[in-house]
């Protein structure tokens, strides 16, 4: 196992842990935008598509790279815009989306 691979693997595991830590703190209300946001994030494969586009050297390579870039771009742009639209709906009311502690207390009494 090369050192490069080992480093990559460490980063991989660390990122997974961060992912778990972040998501477990998000309230259920925001899960739909969250899923959409995560969806948009993995559109980062666009970077990978660009890298293969740079190293492509035959017709098939160019074609594959083209499709990959088109797909990835759709993923990033679409995912981002959709997430933004969803979050817009929370923002417009001016009130926080998550219940504040006093509201929760109110509920317990009511």
């Amino acid at each position: 196992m090369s050192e490069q691979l080992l480093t990559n693997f460490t980063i991989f595991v660390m990122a997974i842990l961060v992912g778990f830590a972040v998501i477990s703190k998000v309230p259920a209300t925001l899960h739909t935008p969250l899923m959409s946001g995560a969806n948009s994030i993995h559109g980062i494969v666009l970077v990978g598509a660009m890298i293969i586009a740079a190293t492509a050297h035959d017709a098939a390579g160019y074609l594959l790279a083209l499709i990959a870039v088109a797909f990835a771009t759709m993923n990033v742009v679409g995912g981002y815009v959709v997430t933004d639209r969803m979050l817009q709906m929370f923002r417009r009311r001016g009130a926080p989306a998550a219940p504040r502690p006093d509201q929760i207390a109110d509920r317990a009494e009511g």
Partner: protein
Amino acid sequence: MLGLYTARTVAMTAMPQLVSLFNAVGGGAAALVAIEEYLSRSSGDIPLDTTVFVVLDIVIGAITFTGSLVASGKLMGLSFTPSRPVQVPGGRLVTIGLAAIVVLGSVYLFVGNESPAVMLLILAAALVFGVTMTLPIGGADMPVVISLLNSFTGTAVAMAGFVLNNVVLIIAGALVGASGAILTKLMADAMNRSVMNIMIGGFGGGDAAAGATAGAGGSVRELGVDDAAIQLAYAQNVIVVPGYGLAVAQAQHAVRELAELLEDRGVDVKYAIHPVAGRMPGHMNVLLAEANIPYPQLREMEDINPDFERADVALVIGANDVTNPAARRPGSPVSGMPILDVDRARNIIVIKRSMGRGYAGIDNELYTNEKTGMLFADAREGLANLVAAVKAL
């Protein structure tokens, strides 16, 4: 550009399909990256670790691509991907066979052989596997599947990162993979089913569905707009149960109008939000928030269920499976799914376009309950009529 256009124009209710579609292209892109990388390098020596990641990337990416497309098609109600579970005779065997092809092909490549042909065979098998895996799963479980596939794509992207030695891809992919996995778990918990159960089992068995429909078939009481308005206006506690039908009809503003009217008359109005109302966790909250409905009135399921007994009227708007009392008994496809105790309310008004079935594909016993009055109308139209009728009182 295409992505931007669709994302801007699509209706809020079509969100899950769209997310799934974007997910599909993301997975597809990840698979393509790996294919191209493999093909362009196949002349020279490819180290074993690269091969492993390439294969993983292609397999996961391809499954996600077709799987997400099927999931998206099911939610859009396309005819070739019906939302009801599709059981092909021997379908399970085909799936297992495909999995075997993938595994054997991978082993062949791992032991040192280099063959683009085998790689493409694996790709094809994985693509078909995505279809056969998703097709038998019912529409009700689609959100969970989409979330799971989302997690898959993240993993595929991370694998692409390993292939290309690109740290950004690894980090982003792993983040999404992990968050997708935990989200999937949360959603499955909300429906009281395990992820494995959903992936393998389809939605209930054919025989179970038959047993559930036998109990239904009672008579349905139809209710006029004026009668419904009187019931609502002279009630003290009203619980609104919004469902997918409300979302489709974009009736969230009409609901708020009706609720405000009732509150002016001194009626206490609350909203019961099922965890998977509108097909994704929090989807309904987003819609109601858009209509400026005060957040404290939105109640989660566990919170509101004890209140149904004291409610004079439960107004069910386009919700179906999440209110089906059949879920309390074993032997029905929705068994074990937590539901809103709508049937405990003193009176029930259901606004619905028809007696059509929900995602689970079974009849709702709530509709034949003697306390239930059915108001057959499009959610927005029906609510507008109700508002007019309440005003006229």
